[in-house]
């Protein structure tokens, strides 16, 4: 506790206009292992330019960056020093949900420790990911308070070697609801006045030289808010969305990040001057939320001009799933409850962790159509997987790459093709709306991915929680997926889950 207090006290705080600082980080050694300890505790911290007592990791509202690489391992201890339950989800990562892996069905009790071991496949996609509390009915408040942080999987510069010389920045976006009490709100109210920060800082300066190319990883790790950002009318080049590298050139002057989304972009230094990075006001629909706009940061271009780096490597290609054979088509309706503002359904049901709603065979590609008859946006996310958006409102969508979350239009639909093909995902996990108010309100369901020969039995067990029980290997005897991996993965086969 003393160490935490010292850490908090010694942390240098930036005022508006200070240079954007790099997040503190846990990184990996030669063996590829990143050892991490996250201490979750109520702490007096600076949020932007204001002090609040909130729930944060390691004594800082600006949570540490976890750095890893494809084929690497994250060994993480979650030290819960709070008076409430919590847990962790590793958003977007294609890792096992079994045993000590990325399972949201395990909670860490008050003043107890939890253990996570994540083994990234060698072909794991590089880019920005994030970790956060996924404790049902408390996730919105805990994430809003600070229990979320960035992950960076190195390797993007292996795909684009010409980017090795550019400066890489991690920009962590979040919002914090203001209160009169000086404490984290007990109930987060979407759209309420809040403090929007980048890396915990209020309106920092981001230095660049004219012509200089920088690689920015933007991560929306806020609980509910959509970030609609503009960089003084400049266009940026998109490298990846949700840590999935795009398959062709994409540029934009508007950076849209829904809750949980990430975007990696190349920014080129303009002529000397100051250029605001603005967050525009946003409205999520007639029944949704209204967020005010603000200036998030200022890009400060100064110094001698330097040559601009342009992409010359070919874009990595992934299968276009529009050509894939669809094994099953499913329909999900994301609905607001009519008479209860805190309740949200998928197909008329609230979340029940003890029930499995969907069973899928490993190896299948499925097409899911998500309808939103509500007059507000929802934000779909599925754990352990990426997917391809093939239609928006029934009209074909351009293919620029995979992603792990996407908006569902208010009174509209979106159609996805989801490859349940990587054996590392065998197990039980969830899909849900990533507006955490909605997720906590019940807009979440459980899915189990099983070997084809176990499908019939797994469906039978859906009402009892499915074939994996609580996602521990012993709950389903030896259904670790190892057989499937041995049959499909390149040697040596990847071990799963919790083996140290």
């Amino acid at each position, binding site marked *: 506790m003393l160490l935490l207090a010292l850490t908090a006290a010694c942390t240098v705080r930036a005022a508006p206009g200070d240079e954007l600082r790099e997040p503190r980080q846990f990184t990996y050694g030669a063996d590829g292992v990143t050892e991490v300890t996250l201490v979750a505790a109520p702490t007096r911290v600076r949020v932007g330019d204001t002090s609040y007592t909130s729930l944060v990791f390691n004594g800082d509202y600006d949570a540490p960056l976890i750095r890893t690489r494809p084929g690497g391992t994250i060994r993480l201890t979650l030290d819960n020093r709070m008076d409430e*339950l919590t847990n962790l989800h590793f958003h977007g990562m294609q890792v096992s949900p079994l045993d000590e892996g990325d399972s949201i069905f395990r909670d860490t009790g*008050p003043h107890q420790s939890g253990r996570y071991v994540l083994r990234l496949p060698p072909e794991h996609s590089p880019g920005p990911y994030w970790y956060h509390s996924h404790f049902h009915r408390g996730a919105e408040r805990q994430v809003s308070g600070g229990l979320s942080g960035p992950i960076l999987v190195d390797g993007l510069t292996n795909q684009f070697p010409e980017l090795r010389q550019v400066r890489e920045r991690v920009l962590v976006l979040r919002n914090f609801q203001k209160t009169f009490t000086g404490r984290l709100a007990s*109930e987060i109210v979407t759209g309420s006045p809040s403090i929007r920060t980048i890396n915990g800082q209020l309106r920092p300066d981001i230095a660049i030289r004219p012509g200089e190319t920088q690689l920015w990883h933007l991560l929306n790790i806020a609980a509910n808010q959509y970030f609609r950002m503009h960089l003084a009318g400049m266009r940026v080049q998109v490298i990846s969305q949700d840590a999935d590298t795009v398959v062709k050139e994409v540029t934009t002057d508007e950076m849209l990040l*829904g809750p949980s989304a990430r975007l990696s972009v190349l920014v080129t230094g303009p002529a000397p001057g100051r250029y605001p990075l603005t967050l525009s006001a946003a*409205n999520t629909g007639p029944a949704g939320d*209204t967020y005010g706009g603000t200036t998030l940061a200022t890009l400060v271009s100064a110094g001698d001009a330097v040559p601009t780096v342009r992409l010359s490597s070919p874009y990595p290609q992934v299968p276009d799933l529009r050509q894939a054979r669809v094994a099953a088509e499913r329909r999900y309706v994301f609905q607001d409850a009519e008479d209860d503002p805190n309740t949200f359904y998928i197909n008329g049901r609230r979340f029940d962790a003890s029930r499995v709603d969907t069973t899928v065979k490993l190896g299948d590609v499925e097409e899911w159509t998500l309808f939103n008859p509500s007059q507000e946006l929802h934000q779909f996310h599925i754990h352990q997987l990426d997917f391809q958006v093939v239609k928006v*409102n029934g009209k074909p969508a351009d293919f620029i790459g995979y992603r792990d979350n996407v908006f569902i*239009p*208010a009174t509209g639909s979106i159609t996805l093709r989801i490859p349940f093909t990587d054996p590392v995902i065998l197990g039980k996990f969830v899909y849900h709306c990533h507006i955490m108010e909605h997720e906590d309100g019940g807009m979440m369901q459980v899915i189990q991915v099983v070997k084809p020969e176990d499908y019939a039995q797994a469906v039978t067990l859906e009402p009892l929680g499915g074939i994996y029980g609580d996602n521990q290997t012993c709950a389903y005897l030896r259904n670790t997926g190892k057989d499937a991996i041995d049959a499909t993965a390149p040697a040596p086969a990847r071990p799963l889950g919790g083996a140290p």
Partner: protein
Amino acid sequence: MNRGRRVWVTVCAACAFGSAEASTGRYPGFGIDYGTAIQYDFASLRVPTPGGSVTTNGYFDITSDLHFRFGRNDEVWLSTEVSPVTTTRPGERRWLGGTGLTVADLHWYHQDEKDTWRLGKIDIPFGRAQSAAPGLYTGDFVAPYALGGMIGGTYERRFASDTLGTLAPSLSVYAADTSVLSRAYLRPSAQARRADGGATNTGKPNNVAAVLNWRAPAALPYMEVQLGFMANHKGETNAAHPTAANERLRTASVRYLIPIEPTTLLSPTLASRYVDVVPFVEYVRISNENGVPGYDTAYLTTSLTVDTGRIAWGLTHTNRRISLSGARRSNDYLTEGSVVYHLTGLVDVGLSGGRARQDGQTSHLVGVQIVLSGAF
């Protein structure tokens, strides 16, 4: 300690209960959601007297909804209203007069994965015009069938299928409130009595409403349909109410959301350029309205809402056809136009104006409303 005082003491004790962090670590602990609507209305009624006098009434109508959260699935809901509880006299020009506080709802609310129930003083989920039609005054106009403040319970179960969408049948049993919660506070008033008569005023839960809500079938994913039947027993007869009859109500309504598709994409939605059009039609037929024998009515509400970004425009017309045995048919109506501006995430401002004809008298209405919402 009388019953009313016990309720308030309980609520106050609950307010002091503690913070959100329960010692078990199970969140949420205790908390409160609130919604407050502050409305100022001005009504002008031309009285059919030789002098043609005009009655005016300017008043605030403040409704507050408090949801006390006790756990994952259980809440206590309390809704109150501060508004005039006495009527104006013909020709009276009243300003902020007759105001009192009433308890509209006070019930236990339980929500499971597939079902919901409420127990206590509740609104009966029969008819949708009160919530689905835009405007400030339609709710009062259709109040004869949109029963609120009944003592009883409601159970709803939700079913879903890929083709049919969500089907949610519900069953309510209830009776009119004659408890201390039926009186107005902050102003001398009388508690409701059985002798007041009227349908549902039976003193026992022998009135019933069965309603089916159907939403989002595959073929018409943005459609909402409600079908309902309600049977209310007659109240007591006495010198003041010499006759009574059982009341029967049937309802059918359809609401459909028609988005302007290009505006539903992410960027235009966030930029407040989202547009949709929402038609709503509801028909309700009542036999022996409020237990009056032979007093049959039929309500037809049609409305259109156009949502344009942060502004919602609405137009609602409700026609009430009255068929009284031995008398000529007559029609009452209410027509109102409205606009709501979503000022911030927590504040809405609404403006509504309309014209109504009831009991042979025509009135003009105009009101402005500010809605605040939030949580503790």
